[in-house]
């Protein structure tokens, strides 16, 4: 492949990936409002279009046309920088996430991800750890008590649970022997006894899977770990002082992170895009993407389901849960997995 086609193909993939991600983000908000509404025996958005399907569009327009207010007492450069950091880091991590195997379009043979690098998982961990600055700086630069407390809570929570999250992935890495996400998916190919797929969750990583899910909920500041934006005590947490599109950027970052986390869960524990493939060639190349999308959708639904069901932790409970329960469990999982692999 010549440099010209390579750049062209990469550009097309970047535009497509961002488009898909942002659409997913927009419609996750609608799904959330709808599902939570039905859990609470309401209808949810139903006025804009049939079943309210244009609601995200209307919300977006509203955010753009709202007055962009910058309070006079803020630290201006950092106040502007914080939402930018939050959103760019959230969007960057999609670059290494594969959504399907290699496909062939005419003479071009390309993987269904923006770039396949051999430290893919590390890149995602690194980018999300830099994303903490968005939240921390938003809290500090707003120069308000609520924001400050929200920012501190959020960043303390994120760095605490990042450790459990990172350690829960080690078991998967021991099995796959690679940081590359497509290698990890390929290591889960095949079935036992003709019907049980060789996914990592069935290979004995189910403890790691639950640690990952719980840590991921905390990482993305979702219920039951949404203390950074506990309305009853902190107004809106770190983005109290933000309005208009800057607020929307934090919002988009949060939902983009949810999508990333769901993608990672599917890739690392549920075999990525594996599933029955049949039919004509065009269907065959698109079916894996469909199976991948099904998994991601399921994760998003569970996210929302949990939000509609569970109450919030107290902050000391949250810290104790992360450090005294998840972390030792993750380390125990590493020891057991390493032992099993060594014995094999």
């Amino acid at each position, binding site marked *: 492949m010549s440099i010209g086609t390579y750049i062209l193909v990469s550009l097309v993939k970047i535009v497509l990936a961002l488009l898909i991600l942002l659409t997913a983000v927009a419609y996750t908000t609608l799904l959330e409002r709808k599902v939570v509404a039905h859990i609470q025996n309401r209808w949810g958005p139903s006025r804009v279009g049939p079943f309210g399907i244009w609601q995200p569009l209307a919300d977006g327009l509203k955010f753009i046309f709202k007055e962009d207010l910058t309070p006079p007492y803020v630290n201006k450069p950092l106040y502007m920088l914080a939402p930018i950091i939050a959103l760019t880091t959230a969007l960057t991590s999609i670059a290494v996430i594969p959504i399907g195997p290699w496909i062939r379009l005419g003479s071009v043979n390309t993987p269904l991800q923006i770039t396949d690098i051999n430290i893919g998982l590390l890149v995602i*961990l690194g*980018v*999300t*750890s*830099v994303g*903490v*600055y968005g939240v921390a700086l938003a*809290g500090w630069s707003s120069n308000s008590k609520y924001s400050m407390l929200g920012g*501190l809570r959020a960043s303390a929570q994120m760095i605490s649970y990042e450790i459990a999250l*990172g350690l829960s992935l080690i078991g998967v890495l021991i099995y796959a022997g690679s940081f590359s996400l497509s290698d990890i998916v390929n290591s889960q190919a095949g079935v036992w006894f003709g019907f049980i797929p060789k996914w990592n969750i069935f290979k004995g990583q189910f403890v790691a899977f639950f640690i990952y899910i719980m840590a991921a909920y905390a990482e993305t500041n979702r219920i039951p770990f949404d203390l950074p934006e506990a309305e009853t005590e902190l107004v809106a947490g770190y983005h109290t002082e933000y309005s208009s599109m800057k607020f929307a950027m934090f919002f988009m970052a949060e939902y983009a992170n949810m999508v990333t986390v769901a993608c990672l869960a599917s890739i690392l524990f549920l075999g990525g895009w594996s599933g029955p493939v049949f039919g004509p060639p065009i269907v065959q190349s698109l079916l894996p993407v469909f199976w991948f999308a099904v998994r991601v959708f399921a994760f998003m639904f569970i996210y929302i389901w949990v939000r509609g069901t569970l109450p919030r932790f107290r902050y000391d409970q949250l810290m104790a849960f992360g450090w005294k329960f998840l972390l030792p469990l993750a380390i125990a999982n590493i020891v057991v997995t390493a032992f099993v692999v060594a014995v094999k």
Partner: protein
Amino acid sequence: MIPVATTFFFYFLAVLAIGSAIAVITQRNPVHAALALIVTLLALAGFYLMLYAPFVAGVQIVLYAGGIMVLFLFVIMLVNLEQNIREYQFNKQWLVGTIVALALGGLLLFVYRTGRGTFPTVFYQGYRGLEGDNTQQIGLALYGQYMLPFEIASLLLLVAIVGAVVMAKKRI
């Protein structure tokens, strides 16, 4: 892939690293200084990538830029900055500081001048294989050849953690 524009990236990262390092010591607001330090650390991660050490680059970002610096920022955010900003930026130790810095610079220059033969002038040509299994290479080296130093370093860290807990907690 053949590396492209390496000279450009080298000088870009070098300017970024040195420029933000200067900003670390000249910025009056400690939060700005900490942010400049993060930029320096990220630029260093870029250098590791250019040296075909992707694992080291990733760990640099996760640990230093994403872990340690967040804690730095935490402490800075909680102290009273108003007083800090008004304080004079030079204290009485500037003479000692200058001497130590000059000595360190001289040492680096000396090592560079005399040890020229030991530094590779041309980049190692067999890197194409190395790039892929950088992580495995580091793992094998750490748990094989450098087992003892690695364990000693872990023990030191453990001692530091225990010390921190003892100092922070009144009643254990």
